[in-house]
């Protein structure tokens, strides 16, 4: 299948007076259309840095990345046409209502039937009752849901979700997983980062573990488990074991 996201030997430094901080040290992967790619890593691993480069917010220092065949640096305008991002930090307007937030994104993305689309997304994220309240009255989880609903407005073919389920309760997390699976079935390509192994195991058809700037393991959740099979315990390890083994803290 054609790959929607293609990353080759990506390097990123953050320069400061104290010296360079080499955050990504040669990261490569491909994500097929309709795939769910999960970048797993602990705090400071470089997940957000990778998302920033892929969503045209940051520039790589070496290597290349392309979305739908367009280079993220050279053709950033065209890349923006096919992506939508939910960043790690909430991107909602506190003093606007949920409906107004969605309507604004619809206007910017020139969505047809924007009113109906807004209602559909409010329903999908169970925000109908709060639709006309200002976001400042929302709980953290409601805000997160609105944030993701705003990202889905306009049906972009590639969706980036930076730790989308952080702060959601179990019920809403499962609902979110359902929604992500449905989107992938519809052909949407999904790139998500998480610190939750369970989430990667549940959702992804491809997992990459990012540790200290390099991908130390990559494959389907099953493949990663196979890697570790037939060690002393004689059972399939959980992804958690895989993760801990690879980052060498076990």
């Amino acid at each position, binding site marked *: 299948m054609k790959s929607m996201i293609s990353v080759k030997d990506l390097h990123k430094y953050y320069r400061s007076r104290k010296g360079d901080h080499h955050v990504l040290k040669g990261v490569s992967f491909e994500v097929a259309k309709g795939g769910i790619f999960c970048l797993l890593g602990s705090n400071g691993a470089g997940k957000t*840095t990778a998302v*920033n*480069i892929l*969503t*045209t*917010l*940051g*520039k790589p220092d070496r290597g290349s990345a392309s979305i739908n065949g367009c280079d993220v640096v050279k053709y950033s*305008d065209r890349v*923006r*046409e096919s*992506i*939508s*991002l*939910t*960043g*790690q*930090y*909430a*991107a*909602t*307007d506190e*003093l*606007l209502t949920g409906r*107004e937030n969605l309507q*604004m*994104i619809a*206007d*910017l*993305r020139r969505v047809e039937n924007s009113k109906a689309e807004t209602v559909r997304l409010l329903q999908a994220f169970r925000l109908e009752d709060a639709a006309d309240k*200002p976001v400042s009255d929302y709980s953290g989880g409601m805000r997160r849901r609105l*944030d993701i609903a*705003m*990202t889905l407005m306009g049906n972009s073919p590639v969706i980036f979700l930076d730790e989308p389920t952080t702060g959601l309760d179990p019920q809403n997390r499962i609902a979110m997983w359902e929604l992500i699976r449905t989107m992938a079935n519809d052909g949407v390509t999904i790139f998500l980062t998480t610190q939750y192994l369970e989430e990667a195991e549940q959702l992804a058809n491809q997992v990459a573990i990012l540790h200290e700037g390099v991908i130390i393991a990559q494959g389907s959740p099953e493949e990663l488990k196979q890697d570790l099979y037939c060690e002393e315990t004689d059972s399939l390890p959980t992804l958690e074991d895989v993760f801990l083994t690879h980052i060498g803290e076990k």
Partner: protein
Amino acid sequence: MRFFSDTYVMFKRNIKIGFRNPDAFGMAIVAPFIMIMLFGLVLGGAMEMGRANYVNFIVPSIMMISIVQSTIFVGISINREKKAGIVDRFRSMPIAQSSFLLGHVCASVFRSVIVVVAVTVGAFIIGFRPEASFTQWLAIAGIFLLVTVAATWLAVFVGLVVKSEESASSSLTMISLLPYLSSGFAPIETLPRWLALFAEHQPFTPVIDSARALMMGSPVSNSDLILSVVWWTGIAVVACIAAVKMYGHKLAK
């Protein structure tokens, strides 16, 4: 065209947010009003020129202070949106990239105009009695609009550069204090020498002097008018370029 419609959406967004923040907006109107009362009514009587003349004398500088203070809101907003994910979201969307800043600037200028009009009405109630003709009023409006646009771009730049909302607010408050050190509250001749030197050469003084002359229907010095336009066009252009550069490159992760 994409550019106009995106800027319009952003403008609408900021207008809504601005008016739902009645505290900030109310303060921008009430604070200058209180200043006119304090200076004009309380201190004015002690002035050689008399209370009535003193109110007329200080209105231009009060206007300058209210213009700068009314831009604090946009500086704070932009700083907050930079730190939250809002700027990132817009930067990753297929929209005219200049629309975010321009929408902020247009909405902020719109708010400032309302503030200035409200403060003018307030000044009338307290005893401001201008004698300007219609064309003189047009000239005043033109200069004030130029100062407003420049101050707004400056506030946008400050909001993008500083680390916290508090420092955005305090740096812009500092700028709003500059008209105190001008010809705004006392004739320059009465100031101590070093202060007079600063007052004579700072950008608010020519605007205040021209506006005062225009308001009172007295002859305006051409050099004041030219200096006003040169200073504030310069500030507007530099702040605008710096803000756009900052938004385009420095915010890159």
